[in-house]
């Protein structure tokens, strides 16, 4: 189980996260929705210390760390228990698709090289890019790069996979197939926290939907609850703007 | 081995007198270089038939020769071709610096022009502007902010480059700062003084030019 407790974060005078707590059960998929500036990406990045929170506690499985005062060693440990899929893919530009995954396994997780290569090849096969093993990211399309990014994150066998708006930078035609891939990852039983704007994906795949606004969690519940029976007015406002009138009965 | 602050000051004062010499040797060739260099750059960009090929080769060869060597070569040619005139050596220095700077400036300007996307020209022509109008109203206003940092570098480099007149015996800041050293036989104060003077001049000119850059970029 992943537990995030009372996270607070400010950038200068701007309070981005006020007091956010979240629980993620093993094997479940949590989708975080909300307008820009709601703090959802900051929350996600605080988990693997790409942002350093001002306050908060993170528990993964049986070990806890303080999100503000964690030392280098603890940070590294957490980063080895989590993996991330980025909005801009962030594949290592100087490594091939295969090497991107192998490097992460060998240098990040200390897996012996032979084993790493095998696992990497398997993950690439699963995302359908075996024939592009030796291509560099600059030779791959955006959609392909993201698939490698997902393969890399999955290969790391993390306790939770973090997705930071994984389809926001993709051409509309590619969004669907990428979401299908992410759905498959969910089906395989991985614990996932996904920040996204894709509503139907959220409804389809999420076990829990969390709506954030202005640095707070406004409402959380099952997709059914949130989309069809939102309790908070703010949630209703957001859904009304995002979803074409008539699709959901508010 | 001693270092005397008193003599250092003496050398600084001695060198300061010759700052105008250094500045003139730096800035006059630079000004001429900007004019000629831009013309050459334009000739190469618009691929003016003979001129383009000629300068392409000339620039490639000339920039491969160190400044000191060209200066010495021109000096020798001057000595055998011309009767020693009063300001002859000085003019020689001006000539050599102007030639060298023109080459460098033409490359900077050419680089700045090349960084303007072809689409800017195309859109302008498509709107019915002539080549001259395009250059005047669309291209050059965009080239200037790009070329400015390079020209700042050029100006600073020009000032530093003047120190090689040492080989000609012209008295500039470098030579001037070491005049007192003939008495003490200690040259360290002289060269440190020269370094300080150059450093300060550089800092002032750089400050001024960076502000000019910012001012001109804001206007656009």
């Amino acid at each position, binding site marked *: 189980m992943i537990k995030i407790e009372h996270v607070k974060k400010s950038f200068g005078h701007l309070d981005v996260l006020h007091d956010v707590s979240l629980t993620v059960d093993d094997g479940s998929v949590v989708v975080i929705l909300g307008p820009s500036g709601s703090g959802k990406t900051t929350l996600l990045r605080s988990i693997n210390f790409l942002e350093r929170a001002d306050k908060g506690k993170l528990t993964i499985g049986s070990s806890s760390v303080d999100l503000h005062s964690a030392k280098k060693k603890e940070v590294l440990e957490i980063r080895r228990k989590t993996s991330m899929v*980025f909005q801009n893919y962030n594949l290592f530009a100087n490594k091939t698709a295969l090497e991107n995954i192998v490097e992460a396994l060998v240098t990040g997780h200390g897996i012996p090289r032979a084993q790493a290569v095998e696992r990497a090849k398997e993950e690439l096969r699963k995302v359908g890019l075996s024939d592009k093993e030796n291509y560099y990211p600059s030779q791959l399309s955006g959609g392909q790069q993201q698939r490698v990014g997902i393969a890399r994150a999955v290969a790391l066998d993390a306790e939770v996979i973090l997705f930071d708006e994984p389809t926001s930078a993709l051409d509309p035609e590619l969004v669907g197939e990428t979401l299908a891939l992410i759905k498959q990852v969910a089906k395989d039983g991985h614990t996932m926290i996904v920040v996204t704007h894709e509503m139907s994906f959220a409804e389809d795949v999420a076990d829990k939907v969390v709506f954030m606004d202005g640095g707070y969690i406004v409402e959380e519940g099952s997709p059914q609850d949130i989309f069809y029976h939102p309790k908070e007015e703010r949630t209703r406002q957001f859904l009304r703007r995002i979803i074409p009138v008539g699709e959901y009965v508010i | 081995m001693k270092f005397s602050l008193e003599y250092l000051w003496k050398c600084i004062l001695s060198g300061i007198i010759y700052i105008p010499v250094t500045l003139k040797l730096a800035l006059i060739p630079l000004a001429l270089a900007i004019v000629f260099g831009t013309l050459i750059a334009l000739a190469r960009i618009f691929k003016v038939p003979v001129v383009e090929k000629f300068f392409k080769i000339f620039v490639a060869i000339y920039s491969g020769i160190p400044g000191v060597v060209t200066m010495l070569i021109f000096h020798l040619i001057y000595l055998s071709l011309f009767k020693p005139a009063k300001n002859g050596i000085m003019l020689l220095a001006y000539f050599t610096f102007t030639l060298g700077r023109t080459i460098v400036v033409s490359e900077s300007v050419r680089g700045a022009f090349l960084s303007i996307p072809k689409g800017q020209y195309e859109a302008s022509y498509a709107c019915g502007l002539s080549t001259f109008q395009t250059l005047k109203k669309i291209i050059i206003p965009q080239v200037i902010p790009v070329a400015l940092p390079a020209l700042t570098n050029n100006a600073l480099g020009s000032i530093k480059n003047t*120190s090689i007149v*040492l080989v000609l015996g012209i008295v500039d800041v*470098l030579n001037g700062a070491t005049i007192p050293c003939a008495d003490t036989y200690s040259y360290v104060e002289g060269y440190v003084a020269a370094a300080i003077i150059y450093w300060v001049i550089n800092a002032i000119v750089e400050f001024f030019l960076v502000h000019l850059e910012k001012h001109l970029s804001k206007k656009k």
Partner: protein
Amino acid sequence: MADLFSWQRVVKNFPILITKLPVTFEIVAVAFSLGFILALLIATTRIKKVPLLNQILTVFISFERGTPLLVQMLVVYYAFPIVLYKAFGIDSRRWEKIIFVDLALILNQGVFLGEIFRGAILAVPKGQKEAALACGISDSKAFIKIILPQAIRIALPSTGLTLIGLFQETSLVYMLGVMDIMGRASALGATSGHNLESYLIIALIFVLINFGLTAITTKIDKNLTYGTKNLTGRAA
């Protein structure tokens, strides 16, 4: 005019001058390699903003960039022995002149290459480091395996240009009395009274070195592109 130039002297002087070319190459090799290492140290120190060192470096860099190389060499030649004597009691006045020249060039290269490296490291997209960290790769390993290789590729064109410039700058060292190709030409001229052929030979040699190096660096630039067809932006 009559006796200004003679092909005979060209042929005669060439073998004499060429024997001193290795001196130039030696100076360039020492200055570039040690300057390279110094540059890496300077770049990383500046990026990490190491407290006291950073300020000292800023002043030093300003000096190196604000003064002519010739002056720097003269200052090192005359002031370094004093500093060394005051600090360690070593009398270095009788050392080979080439040492002082090497030192001045190493410092100069260190600063200019350092600026290039610093810019290149900062130019690597932030996401590369974040992805590495997110994969559990440590800071230092991320720098060595992901950032540095990409920074090298970005820095290559400018580094090549700096090396080419370094060759040209070595033409100044004869003014301090170093017996390189220029020094030899000067000596020849002093005895024979004819310098033009020697300087023209030297000019030719430098032009050829320039062409050679430019061709090599262009080729290397092309090959280090990780599959992309064209490099974006030649940082010059």
